């Protein structure tokens, strides 16, 4: 009798232990499967959201070219179909990565999409579309977070191979890890002339030309007119091959402490403010007047660059200074087509430089990162598309994650 009882107790204990163990094992398998299913759903959501953003222009249709806030969000170029993205709508997205800039003379904070010294794109927060608005418009607010990256497919990097007499610039064109050999290069080379005296506006000369990259994606451009290192210049290069178009730019300035900074003021009227850099970076005194001379270049349909002269009435030349009593200047972009605003400036008889600003994000192939920070998220699904932004090839990459917990256990 005792033996049977012990047998019963041992068998029952072992049975219950085994049962609990197997319930745990099965449960773990089921949990993993559910988790995978949820991840799969996020991936589908990422694909859908990316297509929704890229295949709709939003509403109002031309919201990128106005000061209106969109009531429906989309980035498609309203003049095209398929995956063609508006360069102006992208310009109105508030950058996630750039350090915001405060300009006391307007009292506004500016979204900073600047790509380095001399290549500015500053959009006032009042005109830029922020992430929470977009998240609400696309229906992800509170349920999903996302980050959208617009990255140029073609990288055109320019460096000085020889600094003077003659100036030789090395240009390297590459795609996603593969050089673009045999690519046609169209370039615009601007040099600043400061020889007219300290009080005059800086003059500039433009030189347009074409070249080809070699097997390794390199090309060397020689400018025999640059005989000294104190010559300020800018080179803008468009590279294209079989539908792929990329943009590169490079400047050398002789005054990198005091310079002009363009800030977008109004999209609808295409008004741009010209500020003194001391007003933004809080240097000085003493006051240091800068004179400037602005021009605008367009990329034409045959991939050549064309200068679009600005009228004096739109603010072609002017002078700006730092501090109170010295207001900013304004200029008006002469066209609604994308292009590059080029501002030559002079600090003194032998110091000056060139500042570039894209009008339409693609003109200088700026990279945009928009959305929320994905650091520390449990599972991030990504999807990519090749898109065209005003003929320039970009890769649109969307990262999406859930803002709700996934863990089945302890949920």
């Amino acid at each position, binding site marked *: 009798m005792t033996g049977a009882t012990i*047998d019963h107790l041992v068998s029952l204990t072992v049975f219950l232990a085994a049962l609990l163990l197997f319930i745990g094992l099965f449960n773990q398998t089921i949990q993993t499967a559910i988790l995978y299913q949820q991840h799969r759903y996020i991936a589908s959501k990422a694909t859908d959201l990316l297509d929704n953003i890229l295949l709709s222009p939003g509403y109002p249709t031309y919201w990128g070219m106005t000061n209106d806030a969109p009531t429906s969000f989309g980035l498609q170029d309203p003049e095209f179909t*398929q995956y063609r993205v508006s360069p102006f709508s992208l310009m109105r997205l508030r950058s996630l990565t750039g350090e915001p800039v405060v300009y006391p003379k307007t009292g506004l904070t500016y979204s900073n999409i600047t790509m380095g010294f001399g290549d500015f794109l500053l959009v006032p927060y009042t005109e830029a579309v922020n992430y929470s608005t977009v998240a609400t418009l696309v229906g992800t607010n509170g349920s999903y977070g996302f980050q959208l990256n617009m990255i140029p497919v073609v990288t055109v990097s320019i460096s000085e191979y020889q600094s003077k007499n003659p100036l030789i610039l090395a240009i390297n064109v590459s795609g996603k890890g593969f050089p673009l050999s045999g690519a046609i290069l169209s370039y615009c080379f601007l040099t600043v002339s400061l020889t007219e005296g300290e009080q005059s506006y800086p003059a500039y000369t433009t030189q347009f030309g074409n070249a080809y990259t070699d097997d390794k994606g390199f090309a060397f451009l020689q400018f025999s007119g640059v005989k000294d290192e104190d010559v300020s210049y800018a080179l803008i290069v468009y590279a294209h*091959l079989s539908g792929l178009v990329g943009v590169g730019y490079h400047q050398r300035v002789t005054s990198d402490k005091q310079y002009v900074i363009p800030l977008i003021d109004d999209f609808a009227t295409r008004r741009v403010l010209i500020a003194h850099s001391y007003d933004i970076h809080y240097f000085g005194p003493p006051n240091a007047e800068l004179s400037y001379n602005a021009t605008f270049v367009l990329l034409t349909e045959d991939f050549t660059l064309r200068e679009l002269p600005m009228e004096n009435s739109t603010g072609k030349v002017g002078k700006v200074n730092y501090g109170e009593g010295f207001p900013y200047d304004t200029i008006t972009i002469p066209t609604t087509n994308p292009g590059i605003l080029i501002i030559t400036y002079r600090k003194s008889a032998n110091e000056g430089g060139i500042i570039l600003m894209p009008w339409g994000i693609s003109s200088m192939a700026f990279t945009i990162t928009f959305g929320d920070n994905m650091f520390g998220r449990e599972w991030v699904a990504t999807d990519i598309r*090749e898109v*065209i932004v005003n003929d320039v090839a970009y890769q649109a990459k969307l990262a999406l994650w859930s803002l709700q917990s996934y863990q089945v256990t302890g949920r």
Partner: protein
Amino acid sequence: MMRTIEILLVIIIITGAFIIASLFTVLPYPRQVSPIDLRRLALTTLQSLDVDHDLSETVFKPSDAASWTDIKIALSASLPPNIVYNLTVYDVLSGNTQLYNATNSISNAASLGVSTAASSYLVASSNVTFSFTPEKIGEHGSGGTLYILNCSDAYGWWITGYTAQKLAEDLYNLLSPYFQATIMVQNTTQLGNILDNNTISSSPYEKVANAVVINTNGEAVPIPSGYYTVNGSQDSYAKYNYILGQRVRQYNWTWVSIVGYPLYYVSNTALFPNDQNTWGIYGMQQVGPAGLNSFLQGLDNQQYVYNPNWITADLSDSVYLSPEAIYYCNYYGIYPSYYQTASRALTTSILTTYHLDVPTYIFNPAEGYIAGAVYRNAVSGAFLALGLTRTPDIRLTALGLLDYYKPRLYRSDYTTVGTSKLVILQLGQMGGM
């Protein structure tokens, strides 16, 4: 002891069940859970390569053409490094058995791996021409006659850079395929004839009633001598414009003003040899804003009252094509600039004053003004006005009229055989789990 053995047997059975279940419960690799949509990536890559028709041109070239190397380089450069591809071009055949025949293939890998996706893209040869046959306005109803004022004895104003005759010629080329009869009104005498309900050509299709009349003289309007001069001279010929409005109503015309302030001057070189429009153009007399007010009174069959008030505004911002106009830009293949400067935009108050509705907006209304639209009177007659700044763009006139009448385009049939190729881009993902 027996129970313990039985339990051990049960444990073995459950273990077996778990192992068997685990064999069937194969969880996918992370890459399969959250994949890059290779099919979409392939499609968008093909579209990028064809953005300037480079792909379309290359696929019709022999496989040893240099541009195939460019396509290879562009493909490798545009795709992420871990993506391999195979691009195959097929001829489209007409045979009953085989529809496609591969003509060329390029790839950057011997194998695309186990998981691939492909997209297809149909390209047409650049040598192919497509034709269409437009439906004629009036073909299935009344009207169908287009009168273009090409008066040799009248001058234009605010058509800087053009002559009325040149504009008339361009409008003829652009619009005559859409009308049953397109008649050039060669002088003010002929204009007087159609105002008197007489035809002026031998065309059997010419009908005065329900016609469209385009005034190519800009802000000026030709005036015939005789009845219209005698009875229309009141108030610096504002009364003539009133009669003109009455005729538009009487014959259910669509009167078209291509630029500027409509009917601001009257012109006849024989009638006004010594008069000028205050800007030095002889053969012309200024009516002023009363011209348009009088016309609208006549169109609405109101009592004639001299009204010299301006009813237009100079808009500070650009005006943009309406969504409907943009749609018809694509439909008819007419592409004027989608934004314009409007310094003579008409106030919306005329809609109620003169019982007009707007079936067609060429430009979006802005600030209570309309820069371009077709206004239709509640009873009869219509008026297309483009209150834009000079110089005129007659494509906008054509777009407005086509948008208003909406003639259909019958595309000609064409076969894909020999003129089209099918391009398949297959992508595979290398590395990773």
